[in-house]
């Protein structure tokens, strides 16, 4: 294994996904290196969310392979629970468990999947929650929290077990504009700490400032991939130009 291989956290190799006759992903190739932040942009229906869901094995790929730190996670023999435990996911609608307090939401996977001692998990969770301004919410139920607070708790839940890869699927789309900033600031913190992230978003200015690379998805393919400067400053494809013109002019 070469040095370049070791640095690759995620590798997609010709991934296809069909829902009936609907060909949603038409051969996606993508590599994400360790500590890299890759932002996926594109119109609704371009396959962003499906891409995320295939990586997390919520959707089964219909062709191609996905490698997580070199392991083929699309191999039928693979233990999907073990794979998912290595990936952190944050959802558009938070999906916190409403019957559990914040602390239990955050420590559930650590305790039940990773076998971390409850006390250790609790200490670590409280540390993270305090760090992200949620120290007072530890024993609250999610429905007592604002949307922004809920999403920050969901992010803490996802990073609690130090996953190899974080998937953030339009995590600010369900939030009041006033609350988007606090969530994005947290993501920026995670980038500074070196988290490897794949993120789908409609927040173009944020994408521009946080991404190492931008992937523009168009009808099931990564049509254009490049640095934020390349994609936003000098897009090569007419579809990219059209998309950016629409989202930035509103």
């Amino acid at each position: 294994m070469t040095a370049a291989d070791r640095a690759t956290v995620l590798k997609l190799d010709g991934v296809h996904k069909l829902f009936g006759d609907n060909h949603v992903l038409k051969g996606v190739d993508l590599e994400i290196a360790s500590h890299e932040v890759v932002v996926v942009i594109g119109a609704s229906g371009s396959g962003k969310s499906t891409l995320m869901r295939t990586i997390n094995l919520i959707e089964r790929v219909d062709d191609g392979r996905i490698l997580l730190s070199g392991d083929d996670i699309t191999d039928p023999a693979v233990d999907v629970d073990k794979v998912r435990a290595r990936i952190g996911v944050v959802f558009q609608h938070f999906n916190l468990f409403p019957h559990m307090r914040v602390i239990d939401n955050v420590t559930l996977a650590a305790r039940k999947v990773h076998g971390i001692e409850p006390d250790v998990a609790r200490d670590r969770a409280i540390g993270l929650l305090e760090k992200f301004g949620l120290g007072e919410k530890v024993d609250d139920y999610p429905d007592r929290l604002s949307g922004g607070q809920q999403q920050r708790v969901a992010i803490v839940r996802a990073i609690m077990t130090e996953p190899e890869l974080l998937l953030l699927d339009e995590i600010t789309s369900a939030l009041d504009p006033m609350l988007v900033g606090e969530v994005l600031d947290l993501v920026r913190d995670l980038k500074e700490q070196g988290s490897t992230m794949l993120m789908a978003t409609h927040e173009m200015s944020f994408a521009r400032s946080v991404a190492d690379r931008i992937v523009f998805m168009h009808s099931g393919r990564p049509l254009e991939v490049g640095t934020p400067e390349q994609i936003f400053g000098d897009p090569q494809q007419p579809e990219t130009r059209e998309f950016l013109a629409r989202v930035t002019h509103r």
Partner: protein
Amino acid sequence: MEAWQPSELELDRRLQRRRASRRSVLVALVSTVAFAAVAGWLVVSSPDWETVRNTFFNVEIAKSSFPKILEGLWLNIRVLFFATIAVAVVATLLATMRSLRGPVFFPLRALATGYTDLFRGLPVLIVLYLVGFGIPGLNTEVRIPVAVLGTIAISLCYSAYVAEVLRAGMEAVHPSQRIAARSLGLSHAQTLRMVVIPQALRKVVPALMNDFVSMQKDVGLISVLGAVDAVRAAQIAQAQTYNFTPYVVAGLLFVAMSFPMIRLTDAVSARMAAREQQGGTV
């Protein structure tokens, strides 16, 4: 800063509301008393009232039959206790079996589906006869107390009802909750146990309590097997006195037994409705 004081306008409105509510209470009171008086007079003045009162509401017979009936009710309560435990366990198993996915589990799924379909359709009385008289007929050497057989029969039927309620609750938990749990690496079983079932139970508490109230009175059916429960004790007293008051006594005791649970069901439903109106779930 000066504390806010309600304005004249608001004070006047409050006064009006108070007056209106006083008036409604008064009207309700007067009409209720008038109605009760008329209804009472109609009953008491009807030609055969004396006979009716003697047959159904005889105080002497009520008093004399009461201890035996109460003793019988104690059997009903014990049956109810064990049946509740059995139903909780079996129904949860059935609901979980029906929610299993994958072709490997087809037999279990089919078994659970067949069971619930069968026992939801079968009259409780037939199950009681089959279990209570049929099973002892298989082997005359071993004697199983009829109360035990009755408990089994009641549990068989109610497990099917309750399993369906639980399954409905499990299906009402939004799929995004399962996805979130599985994404954390929890297994299917862990997801069911820690995420789906706790939320499902909350959703179906009123329905479960309703089934419990229903089972509270259906434990009286074990009397057909000859178990001396409240219903049987009343029947014995009736046969001795040729008077139907003991049945009324037993009936009222069952009502009294179910009353706390009915009120509790209402209170729980109201509390849950209030909580949901605050919004902000998930």
